[in-house]
């Protein structure tokens, strides 16, 4: 037995030892019993990874079921991020070997194997580190096989056949179809390497096409190595989208547009952009939609640098391009004039110029064409007759001191034809165009008044051309003083589609479709139906009627008859010389819109057959010269293509406007 001192000290030790062990027990209780369920959840998260299995995206088909976009399986090489970073050198050696086997630069492979994040520029992997990171696309099968066989040399490297988007039409319909981009993490809903439509039909019908990704739950160990599959749900493939696009006509349309632009450039016109639209006149379906410049959608299958991406002409001029419509606008002016009481068959003088508000507004090239009815006015595209109509209407509305509710018959008619408003076509981006009127002018003036008035004082010292600087200064001074006023001249300009009017090619096409079909204004549709992977039609898509042009059938018929003579003997006669009108009566209207500081915008809006129109074809070439010389020949080529007519022997564009 030890003495009292030792016993006391041992008692202290006893107390310490006991309390230490009880402390452990208490903490263990807290950890395992109190917060145990939380840690059990953490443990599951620790070892279970959810990998998203990409579904096969639906195809986009043309009206005959021919694919516009489809999928092809390509051998792809991917790396497993978790395996790589657990290599002693963080996978550098493996990637170097891989780069060598693929015959690609190491940098490229290594960059693609990075995870995207702040300060990491393309290329990088936008998805989850637990998904296979694709480092090489379209590897030839032999290389892929040899990599797959040497797993010991390539730990964490996988090869698989994966579907990629392919475009059987080549460059055709690139804008229409749109493209896919990785869903950004910010967009939520899984994000990762999932691709979503970013433009065109791919974006508009993304939900239809995308399908539902499958989910695979895998168990991993601490090294991220997969130890088993816990559950798997197969992906559901996306539905196919059947469109009203006719790939044959689409190709013809694009070729015609490209050809005419090339020819215009050869003639010395800038011809910097263009678009062409083929619409079914009676249904509002889009048969072809072309935009120039275009790009090859195959770029999406390749690795695209940020710079290349930004330099692609992604905007479709068919729906985003806006130009003054020029004389194609006269169908609106004519309809408005007739509704306002003008007799179409009466005789009107077409002088070389007409005085509006103290200023002389001239005919094209100042020609005086004598007396004529409205039929003739459309055929020869007389401007002065419409100037007078506009001037009279403007004065009836009170002129500079407008009545409380001006009728603005021309603007009202323009809106009935669907201008100044988005067509609502099934594409994600669309411009609205512009129908200028008193209110618009005033609002614009108020918005810009300050800058304009400053310019009226300071002038344009930075302008080297002194004449131009003086002109701009005078303009600024006038605008500062009375810019918000809707002058008679504005009304006159409006009547012939000049000045501040802006239309998109698709808007003009549906306006002409309304003229052709008796007044029905459609919201055009490209998609026709959604078809399931098994071929069943899941949904039919019909272009809705969104308006009615309140003009008598007689008037519309009168205008159509007039337009039927334009290619035969009017402004498009040169372009349609030798055209077999007996086989296809094409009716149309040329347009040559002036743009300050730029070459004229060349338009041709047409429909055929004239008696019972089936299609509407609209072509525009920015800075392309007169409508008759550039746009009309392209339209002719499209018509010939649609109806398989013999191509014109002598390709000679007329000078008509």
């Amino acid at each position, binding site marked *: 037995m030890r003495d009292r001192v030792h016993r006391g000290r*041992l008692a202290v030790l*006893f107390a310490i030892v006991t309390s*230490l*062990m009880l402390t*452990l*027990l208490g903490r263990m209780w807290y950890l395992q019993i109190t917060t*145990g369920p939380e840690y059990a959840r953490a*443990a599951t998260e620790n070892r279970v990874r959810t990998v998203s299995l990409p579904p096969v995206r639906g195809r986009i088909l043309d009206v005959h079921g021919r694919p516009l976009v489809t999928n092809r399986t390509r051998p792809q090489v991917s790396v497993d991020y978790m395996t790589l970073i657990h290599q002693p050198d963080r996978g550098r050696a493996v990637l170097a070997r891989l780069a060598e086997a693929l015959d690609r630069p190491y940098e490229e492979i290594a960059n693609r194997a990075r995870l995207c994040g702040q300060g990491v520029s393309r290329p990088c992997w936008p998805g989850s580190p637990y998904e296979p990171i694709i480092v090489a696309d379209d590897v030839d099968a032999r290389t892929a096989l040899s990599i797959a066989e040497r797993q010991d040399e390539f730990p964490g490297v996988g090869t698989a056949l994966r579907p990629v988007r392919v475009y059987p039409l080549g460059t055709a319909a690139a804008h229409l179809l749109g493209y896919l981009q990785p869903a950004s993490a910010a967009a939520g809903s899984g994000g990762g390497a999932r691709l979503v439509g970013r433009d065109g039909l791919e974006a508009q019908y993304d939900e239809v096409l995308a399908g539902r990704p499958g989910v695979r739950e895998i*168990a991993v160990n601490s090294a991220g190595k997969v130890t088993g599959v816990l559950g798997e749900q197969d992906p559901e493939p996306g539905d196919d989208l059947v469109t009203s696009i006719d790939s044959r006509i689409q190709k013809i349309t694009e070729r015609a547009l490209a050809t005419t632009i090339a020819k215009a450039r050869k003639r010395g016109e800038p011809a910097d952009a263009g678009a062409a639209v083929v619409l079914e006149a009676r249904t509002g379906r889009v048969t072809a939609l072309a935009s120039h410049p275009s790009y090859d959608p195959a770029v999406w299958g390749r690795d695209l640098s940020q710079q290349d991406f930004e330099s692609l002409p992604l905007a479709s001029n068919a729906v985003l391009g806006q130009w003054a419509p020029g004389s194609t606008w006269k169908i609106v002016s004519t309809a408005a004039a007739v509704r306002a009481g003008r007799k179409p068959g009466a005789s009107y003088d077409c002088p070389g110029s007409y005085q509006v508000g103290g200023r002389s507004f001239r005919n094209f090239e100042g020609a005086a064409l004598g007396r004529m009815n409205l039929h003739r006015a459309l055929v020869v595209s007389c401007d002065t007759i419409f100037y007078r109509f506009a001037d009279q209407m403007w004065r009836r509305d009170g002129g500079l001191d407008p009545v409380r509710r001006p009728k603005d018959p021309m603007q009202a008619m323009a809106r009935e034809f669907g201008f100044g408003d988005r067509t609502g076509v099934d594409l994600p981006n669309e411009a609205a165009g512009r129908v200028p009127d008193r209110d618009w002018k005033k609002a614009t003036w108020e918005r810009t008044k300050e800058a304009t008035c400053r310019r009226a004082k300071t002038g344009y010292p930075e302008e080297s051309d002194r004449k131009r600087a003086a002109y701009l200064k005078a303009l600024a001074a006038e605008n500062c003083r009375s810019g918000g006023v809707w002058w008679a001249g504005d009304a006159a300009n409006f009547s012939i589609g000049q000045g501040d009017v802006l239309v998109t090619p698709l808007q003009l096409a549906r306006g002409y479709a309304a003229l052709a079909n008796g007044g029905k204004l459609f919201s055009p549709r490209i998609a026709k139906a959604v078809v399931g992977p098994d071929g069943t039609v899941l949904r039919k898509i019909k272009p809705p009627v969104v308006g009615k042009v309140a003009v008598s059938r007689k008037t519309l018929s009168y205008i159509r008859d007039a337009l039927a003579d334009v290619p035969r003997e009017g402004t498009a006669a040169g372009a349609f010389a030798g055209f077999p009108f007996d086989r296809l009566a094409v009716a149309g209207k040329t347009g040559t819109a002036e743009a300050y500081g730029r070459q004229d915008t060349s338009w041709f809006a047409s429909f055929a057959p004239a008696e019972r129109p089936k299609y509407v074809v609209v072509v525009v070439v920015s800075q392309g010269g007169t409508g008759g010389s550039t746009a009309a020949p392209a339209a002719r080529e499209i018509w010939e293509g649609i109806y398989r007519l013999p191509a014109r022997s002598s390709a000679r564009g007329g000078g008509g406007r």
Partner: protein
Amino acid sequence: MTIPRPFGIRPALARGRSRLARARTARRSVSASLDWWVTVPAAVLCGIGLLLVWSATRNEPDVSLLSRQVLSVFLGFVLMWLVSRRDPRVLRAYVPVLYLLTLAGLVAVLTPLGRTVNGSHAWIFLGSGLQFQPSEFAKVALILALAAVLGELREGERRPGRGAVLLALALAAAPIGLIMFQPDYGTILVFAVITGGMILVSGAPKRWLAGLAAAGALAVLLVWLLGLVQPYQIQRLMVLTDPDADPMGLGYNATQARIAIGSGGLLGKGLFRGDQTAGHFVPEQHTDFIFTVAGEELGFLGCAFIVLLMLFVLWRGLLIAARSATPYGTVLAGGVVCWLAFQTFVNVGMTIGLLPITGLPLPFVSYGGSATISTLTAIGLLGTVRRRTDLPGRPTGQSQP
């Protein structure tokens, strides 16, 4: 309190038994010299340890880990038995030799013979997979040496004198200094705690203890102020206060350990059925983090069982210390108790997020030859102290064959 009470017989002390007499009763003394109240719990802990090591290493390519540990446990029990058969005074005679051998071993670690494992240069490599950690054996040697100094009282003395305490401090300082070069701060702490605990148990005056505590605090302060603390050590402390601060970096061990233990719940997922263990989420799981396997697979009940078994061993050790016939035995047993208690607390504490991460094994349970053998030897030391107590079952001629 459940310290097992001794049974009624109060036998005479068996002093001065001749070696011959002991040889005669050798067979009986196997059972008699071992104290079953510590041996059986220690054996159970070793058994649990083997199961847990098996579980932690069953997916490893190196299957020899389990058999090595079986061998270590076996050697440990042999050594335990051999030590417990010795009379305490005989052991005391070996002290100078053991102590010097220990110092030699700790020096050898610092020579090219030494080997670095997990950042600590604490191993001596003997070739073909054989290696040992002198600092583990040094713990036994230190306890023996300090007991010899602090427990050897002059006639009439009831507590060690100033000279004895200073000598004890000097004896502890030498190995501590050598281990600083490895460096292995966990082991240094164990040495410090053993020394402090033995001085406490020896009955040294309270002001001395207060002085020691003050000196210890000062040392910690100095180490901190002089910037001797490595950045990783500060970070280990930071991670302790906020384990989620860096879950994939420094906090990884701590976080994973806590997830493994916490997910065990009350009953655990069952032996060999721990997902976290199978997935090797906790690093060093068969050695310093063996307790996480227990936590996940055996749950709170299994963990509590381990801790209570250890507490039982410690209580029994304290009882042996209390009943020791000599101050030497008291101090010796006290040293063993301090060692096992501290190391258990630090090891389990770090796995459950109570203490920062240090590289100390869990006595009896963790994989590791040197640690297993030296802790079992320490149990043998308790056995030898018990020989000279009034506890029942001690070897006397009157014991039944």
